[in-house]
């Protein structure tokens, strides 16, 4: 599906991946996240000088994807508390992220609107303060305030020396974009 794709991203920078539907943007991000094993090629990523393989990347990266879902029977707070325990971060960290995103803590995840679900995905991605964010269509379903908050969070992440790979069908207005990979070209 993906051939001849190459690129690098450094701390504080963002790589933008664009292309039409079915061009392989999501597949590329899944490979980077360690959720899919690539048939060939090399993915080299290191944190603090230590190279991380697919299994280690999977636990470290922050991921947003359209098909990333949460437990409909649990509330927003219970969902993030559960993943905080698995990620081994204090539950207070989850609450801090949720307050930034203006999410109703006691609402069942199954009763959230599509925009609120996207906010919850942002909360999940930032829960463990990852260095690398892999964001697949990160601003979809947002209203104007939601998109503003998400942009602020991404700006802060990059300003703190984090990295991001963002897949979007069209180009994004971000001055941090250091590398643009167009899979439709």
């Amino acid at each position: 599906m993906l051939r001849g794709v190459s690129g690098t991203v450094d701390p504080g920078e963002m790589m933008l991946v664009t292309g039409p539907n079915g061009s392989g943007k999501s597949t590329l991000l899944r490979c980077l996240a360690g959720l899919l094993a690539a048939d060939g090629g090399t993915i080299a990523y290191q944190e603090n000088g230590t190279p991380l393989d697919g299994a280690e990347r999977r636990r470290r990266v922050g991921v947003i994807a359209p098909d990333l879902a949460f437990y409909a029977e649990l509330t927003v707070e219970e969902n993030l508390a559960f993943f905080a325990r698995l990620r081994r971060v204090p539950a207070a960290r989850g609450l801090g992220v949720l307050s930034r995103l203006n999410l109703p803590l006691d609402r069942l995840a199954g009763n959230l609107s599509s925009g609120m679900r996207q906010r919850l995905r942002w909360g999940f991605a930032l829960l463990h303060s990852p260095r690398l964010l892999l964001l697949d269509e990160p601003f979809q379903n947002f209203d104007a305030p939601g998109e503003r908050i998400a942009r602020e969070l991404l700006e802060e992440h990059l300003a703190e020396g984090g990295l991001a790979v963002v897949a979007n069908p069209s180009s994004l207005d971000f001055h941090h974009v250091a590398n643009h990979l167009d899979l439709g070209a």
Partner: protein
Amino acid sequence: MWQTISTWALEATAVFVKEWRCEFRTRYALNTLALFAFTTLVVVSFSLGPLGVDRSHGTAVLPVLLWIILLFSVAAGLPRTFVQEEETQTAMALRLSATPSALFCGKLLYNLTLVLALEVLVTPAYVIMTSLEVASPWLLVAVLAAGGYGLATGSTLVAAIIAQARSKGTLFSVLSFPILLPLLVLAVELTRGATAGDPGGVAVPVLLLYDATITVAGLMLFPVVWNP
């Protein structure tokens, strides 16, 4: 090292607590297991109870039927363990967050409590309704505990394997057959021994060996099955 073990145990406990919290709010597995167990229990007790079968035949047939009831009740509810994660698309968040072995153990613990609860409810009712005489009650308890553990572990492993397949129901049956058959043969034999007052001999350590083997196999295979 102790810190690693304790954080791993906290992860497994978090999965276990999450499973029960979701289950208490949907009651999917509880209802399925209880309904199937109750229906088959009533059918068996009417057909082979005090009025349906004489005592000499009952001792031979009733232990087999007890394990058939337990097996099919488990098969009706436990395969959902991982299938539901895939169908509701929560599997990705779990893959990104959980240590595979801790996830397996958390799910196994949940399935084990379901199976043991099923056994606690079904077995006394079955013994009473079919007038089954148990000469060695403690052997029966031990067999139910060890057999239930094997059933839960085998089902959890198979549930993980089938979760990403298309024909999940068929595959569960096909894969469960070779994995659970030795366990069921041993469990039936020991249950028959418990009703007749036979101590069980070599079958008890073999059953425990089966439990240990399926646990190690599950812990080794699960990370490969679960992740790409």
